[in-house]
């Protein structure tokens, strides 16, 4: 049970690529990555969840927190998600209407 967080710059986006499981134990790692980006002036963040095996409400809470932080600086936080089990959680909670969700990083960057 682990979560790998990798950040790379691409065009105007900071792409946060996640691999593993996001729950109450691992979500603080994602939260810290988002805080570090915003504090470093990076406020257009794309979170790539295409290699996330598990996501729960704790991870969603961190994303909502990140969204609040970037919105406060006129930035944006968007999601890449492809797996039904991940998309379903955004839909159940209504957050699919809050976060723009893309099918791939390429699609998001060229949008």
């Amino acid at each position, binding site marked *: 049970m682990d979560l790998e967080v990798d950040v790379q710059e691409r065009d105007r986006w900071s792409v946060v690529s996640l691999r593993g499981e996001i*729950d109450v*134990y691992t979500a603080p790692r994602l939260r810290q990555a988002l805080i570090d980006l915003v504090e470093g002036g990076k406020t257009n963040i794309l979170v790539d969840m295409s290699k996330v095996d598990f996501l729960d409400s704790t991870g969603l809470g961190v994303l909502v927190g990140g969204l609040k932080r970037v919105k406060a600086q006129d930035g944006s936080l968007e999601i890449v998600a492809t797996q039904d*089990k991940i998309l379903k959680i955004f839909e159940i909670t209504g957050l699919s209407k809050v976060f723009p969700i893309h099918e791939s990083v390429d699609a998001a960057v060229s949008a």
Partner: protein
Amino acid sequence: MAETVEIRLSPRAEFVGAVRQVLSALGRLAEMSADSVEDLKLAISEAVTNAVTREAAEGSDEEIRIVVSSDEAGVTVEVTDAGAEFDDGSPAEDEASISSQEFSFETGLSLPIVRGLTEHLEMRPAGSRGMTVRFTIKTDREPG
């Protein structure tokens, strides 16, 4: 044939993933569909996370009790914590959990997600303090 598994664990965040893996195996043994096993994993994770965070908010180190039983109809999960006194069906809004804004929005979605995934979600007081969350996920057997 009905099967039952009971787990007691200290309220630590690092145990939630292990519980999720172990108990979702019971769903596979019960021949649940792949989608139902994913729902079970998520619902168990949310209910145990709710219990862990409720105990953390109270500074409690009492064991969390998880009972999972499966039969032909589905898998029923019961999670009991020793957190704050149960309050009229709004456990995520207790004073302790809203003492920190960050903590609140990160935990407030747990039980709504369980409600969205399951049949027969019940929340009730557990003794003089704490609460029990109980829910059922149908087996939804795959054809063949």
